[in-house]
Structure formats: structure tokens, C-alpha cells
């Protein structure tokens, strides 16, 4: 739990990594679609980004000490909301997309208000059941969700500016890529601010010692619900983007195994950081899974995936995530001299 909470960084990264380097890095990421037109690479990256957003949502809920086993249900909710609004009701894409996250968030809020009275493992199980229920409803409420046939969600319409087609989602994957980058950036920004702000402190109190926090005036449920709702909103957006990217949503798309995938990404990536950890985790694990699915020995892929995760978890020092390793690398190797501080005890 040592790395659970950080408000005060002993080393301020802004001073360590020159701003130009960060800027260059961001520009490089933004230029990826210019360098490569490879559909497979781009769609893997897009998927990675989508799962990263979902993993961030899981991490945020975990920040309040609650272990959600139903995060993929919110992806499904967002995805279905957007698909139903566009394909079934014929509404335009952008408003539907905006609404989709809100629908998912609203349901998270309602569920959270009822369920978060019960914390801990019961919350986990109830969210697990919630995931199943969402799947079952999607399967059986045929007039709305078309059951197991699924809904075809078309690509976002081209953005036309001044009679000139600016962005066409059907022509290439680059628009999706930037869409994903925007979603990740907005989610990352919001979550980063949450982590740095008063809310982050309160969340940490709620997670680390609920009883103590409650006796210091923190209304636990309020903050648990806030985290769950915010996570629900952004996970919903991730689900909506997922749906419009695959252009289909069926009840089989999101289930317990997807929730477990989200959870593993988040925790292996490192929960010490609200944004970096999930991103690192999803980049590594999604691409590992993607690579492994090319092996043609059945069973080998899931065997290797499981083993790699177990080994990574075993060898992470003090149970810190991968992102903390990077942090340590900066601390111990690169900026050893600057770490000097007389009162700093050895870890």
C-alpha cells in the first residue's frame, strides 16, 4: 500500500524531464498515423487506448478502496446507449456519443448510491452480478437491444467544414486514432486533476482507513459514489468508442472476462498513478495478448498470458506496478545525485 497515494512527489518530473522532451514525445505520438498507415498497428493502438481508459476508470474506483468486478458493464452500457441512439433511433452521432457516457454515468450513480452502502468484497460481488445482469438484459430485451443479433453501429459521420470534407472516419483509421487520443487525453487530464486535487486526498483517506476517515468528517459514500460515477462516465465513453470502432455491439462483447482484463491491466500497470499506470498496463498487456493471439498452438496463448502476469506480479518489488518501476528508475539511476536529502531514510 506504500505506493497507493502520493500527493507530494519528492522529485518533480516537470523539472527532471525537460519540457521539450515531453513535447517531442507527444508530437511523436500524434504523428504516428503519418508514419504508419498500417491498419493492424493503428487498430491495435486504438484498442489499447480504449482499454486504457477503462483501466483508468477501474483505478479511480480502486482509489476509494473499492474493487469493482463489473467495469466492463459500463463499457457495455455506453456502447449500447450510443448504438441504440444512433442505429435504432436515428439520432446524429455526436450528441449520441456525448449522451452515452452520461447514461453509463447515471446508471453508475444510481447503482453506486444503492450498492456502495455495502463496501468491500460485497461491492465486488454485486458489481460482478451487475455485469452479468447487464449482459443478460442486453441479451433478452430484444425490442431495444436486438438480443444476441447485436446492433450495427455505423462509423461517425464525416466532419464537414465549409463544404470541404475535413475528417472521414470511413477512409482511414487516423481519425479514430485521434479520437482515441482525445478520449485518453481528456480522461487522463480529468483523472490527473482528481488525483492532485482535494478529491484525491479524500479518496485516499476513504480507501486507506474508512473508519478513521468517517470520524474526521468524510462522508465515505459520497466519495465512493463520485469515483464510481466518474469512472462510469469515462468507461461508458470508452465503450461507445469501442462500439463505433468495431461498428458492432453484441451481448458477448463485454463480460466478466473483460472486467478481469481491465483489472489486470490496471493493477499490473500500477495503481500508484491514476493515469500512467493504466496506460502502461494496457499498452503492455493488450499488445502481449495481441501478439500471443498470433500463435497457432491453442492454449499456449492463454498459458503464456497468465504466466507472464503472474511473473510480473511476483517480481514487482513491494507489489508496486510497472509504472513505479519507471519511477524508481528515475529516482535511483538517473537522478541519484539530486535525491540527496539529509532526513530521507532509506526505503
Amino acid at each position: 500500500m506504500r505506493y497507493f497515494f502520493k500527493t507530494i512527489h519528492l522529485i518533480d518530473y516537470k523539472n527532471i524531464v525537460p519540457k521539450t522532451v515531453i513535447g517531442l514525445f507527444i508530437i511523436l505520438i500524434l504523428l504516428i498515423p503519418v508514419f504508419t498507415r498500417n491498419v493492424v498497428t493503428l487498430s491495435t493502438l486504438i484498442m489499447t487506448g480504449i482499454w486504457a481508459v477503462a483501466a483508468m476508470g477501474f483505478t479511480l474506483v480502486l482509489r476509494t478502496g473499492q474493487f469493482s468486478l463489473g467495469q466492463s458493464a459500463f463499457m457495455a452500457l455506453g456502447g449500447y446507449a450510443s448504438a441504440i441512439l444512433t442505429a435504432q433511433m436515428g439520432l446524429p452521432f455526436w450528441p449520441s456519443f456525448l449522451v452515452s457516457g452520461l447514461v453509463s454515468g447515471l446508471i453508475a450513480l444510481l447503482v453506486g448510491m444503492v450498492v456502495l452502502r455495502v463496501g468491500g468484497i460485497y461491492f465486488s460481488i454485486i458489481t460482478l452480478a451487475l455485469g452479468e445482469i447487464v449482459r443478460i438484459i442486453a441479451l433478452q430485451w430484444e425490442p431495444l437491444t436486438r438480443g444476441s443479433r447485436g446492433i450495427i453501429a455505423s462509423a461517425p459521420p464525416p466532419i464537414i467544414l465549409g463544404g470541404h470534407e475535413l475528417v472521414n472516419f470511413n477512409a482511414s483509421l487516423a481519425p479514430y486514432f485521434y479520437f482515441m487520443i482525445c478520449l485518453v487525453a481528456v480522461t487522463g487530464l480529468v483523472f490527473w486533476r482528481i488525483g492532485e486535487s482535494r478529491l484525491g486526498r479524500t479518496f485516499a483517506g476513504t480507501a486507506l482507513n474508512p473508519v478513521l476517515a468517517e470520524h474526521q468528517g468524510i462522508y465515505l459514500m459520497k466519495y465512493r459514489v463520485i469515483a464510481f460515477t466518474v469512472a462510469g462516465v469515462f468507461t461508458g465513453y470508452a465503450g461507445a468508442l469501442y462500439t463505433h470502432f468495431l461498428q458492432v455491439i453484441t451481448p458477448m462483447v463485454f463480460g466478466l472476462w473483460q472486467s478481469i482484463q481491465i483489472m489486470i491491466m490496471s493493477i499490473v500497470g500500477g495503481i500508484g498513478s491514476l493515469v500512467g499506470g493504466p496506460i502502461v498496463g494496457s499498452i503492455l498487456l493488450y499488445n502481449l495478448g495481441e501478439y500471443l493471439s498470433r500463435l497457432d498452438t491453442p492454449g499456449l496463448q492463454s498459458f503464456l498470458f497468465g504466466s507472464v502476469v503472474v511473473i510480473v506480479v511476483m517480481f514487482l518489488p513491494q507489489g508496486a506496478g510497472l509504472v513505479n518501476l519507471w519511477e524508481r528508475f528515475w529516482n535511483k539511476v538517473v537522478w541519484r545525485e539530486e535525491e540527496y536529502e539529509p532526513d530521507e531514510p532509506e526505503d
Partner: protein
Amino acid sequence: MPPAEILIEGLTQSCIYMTMAFGMVLVFSILGILNWTHGQLFMLGAFIVFYSTTAAGIPFPIGILLAGLVMAGIGILIKKFIIDRIKGELYIGVATLALIFALEGAASLLFTSDDRGLAIILPGVLNLGVVAISYQKMAVIIFTLIVMTAMYFVLNHTKVGLAIRAVAQQPVAASLYGISTERLSLIVMGIGCALAAMAGAIMAPLYPINPFIGRTPMIMALLAIVIGGLGSLTGAIVGGLILGFLHSVIAYYISYLSEVVLFGLIILILLVRPQGLFGASAK
């Protein structure tokens, strides 16, 4: 009142959930972690008994014990080499979840993912006129009774059992009285895994065997534990009974909507009694 056959089938289902849930609760109350791989140990138990009876020609009852022994060993290895080396509940949880994939993958590699069956064991149906019951189901019910009685005896009348109960209730005090929590947790992990494997083994004649059969029982056992009350052994048994029976009986009345009702009911139980039916009250 649904026909007796449904009740028997429901009871058979309950037995599997009960045995699994019992092992999971035992592990949880001593180690303080949920072992998510329980379902996969169940699956491996079924495979062991399948191969020991078909390939090696070992009698079925001995095959069950063998499955229990082997999986107890594997459980202890998992505890010693994986769980003990990881700090933090969260990370242990992730590791056991990842083990699900690893074990299912390993089983697919070793045994291929084809369906197998052991229906040749104890074939035949006892037809009592009003109700028909197959010998395999009787075996399951009798086996579960034996296991539960044995567990009751072990927990109440042996040194190990008393130590287990002591540690479950007061870990710190128990360690002060010279109970080695370390050794005890290995024993408990062994027993828990053996129970899962034996549940898989006794069920092998009734259901198809493939590397993925562990998923449903694991989730059901988990739900059984939670509605029964986490940490309560009685709760695990009652939870298993409720899930097994209810699922069958509800399905008889409303067919496929039973799933919705079942999950709704679980949520309802947890909202009314968050600590589960037999869980200790929080305040």
C-alpha cells in the same frame, strides 16, 4: 411444487457448489484471500480422475482421492511459490486471477480442449416409480455428505481443526499460543484445493470434461459464499444449497428468465443483509 427429479438435480448442483464454496471459505478465513483459481483446480481434478480411471485403470473412488491428493500438492505449491512471494491482497488476487488463464491454457495444451466424459462410471438409474435417480447422482450426494461429515469431525475434534478455527477467529492470539500460522495456512490451502479437486472428480461422470468447465462452478461458489456470509462455513453450505436449488426450481417456473431472477435475488440478499445470511454483523 416442482417434480422430484428437479429437486434431485438441484441438490446435485448444490453439492458441487457447497464443496467448492466450503474449500474457498476455509482458505479465505485462514489466508484472508479469495483463491480465484478454485474453479481451475476443480477442472484439473476432473481431468486427473478421467485419466486415472480410463488410462491407468485405477478404480474411481481411489481416483477421487488421488485427484484430491495431487491437487492438494499443487495448491500447496501455488501457496508456497506464488502466493507467499507476493505482498498485498490486491496483487495476490491478480496473480490468482492470472493463474486462471495459465491453468486453462496449460490444460488445453496438455489435454486439448475436446470434450470428454466419464459416463461409464456407475451407469444405471434407480427407478422408484415416483422418482428416478441415477447412481452417479447418489454417489455425488453421498460423497458430499461424507466430505461434510469428515470436515465437521476434523474441524471440531482434531488438533488441526481446532487450530484452524482458532486462527480463523483470532489470528494474533492463536499465534501467541504457539500455533504456526504458516504451516496451518499450507494445510488449509491443501484441504481447500483438495475439496475443489474432489468436487471436480466426483462430478466427472455427470458432466462433460474440458479445460473450461471450472468457470461456472467458481462463480457460483463465489456467489454462494457471499450470500452465505463471507468467512462462515455454515453460510457456504447454505449458500450452495440456495443457489443450486433456486436455480433449478426458478428455471422450472420461468425458464430462461431464471438467470435474471437469480442475480437479482443475490443483489437483493446482499442489500438487505450485506454481511450475508450467516455472516457476523459488522456493528
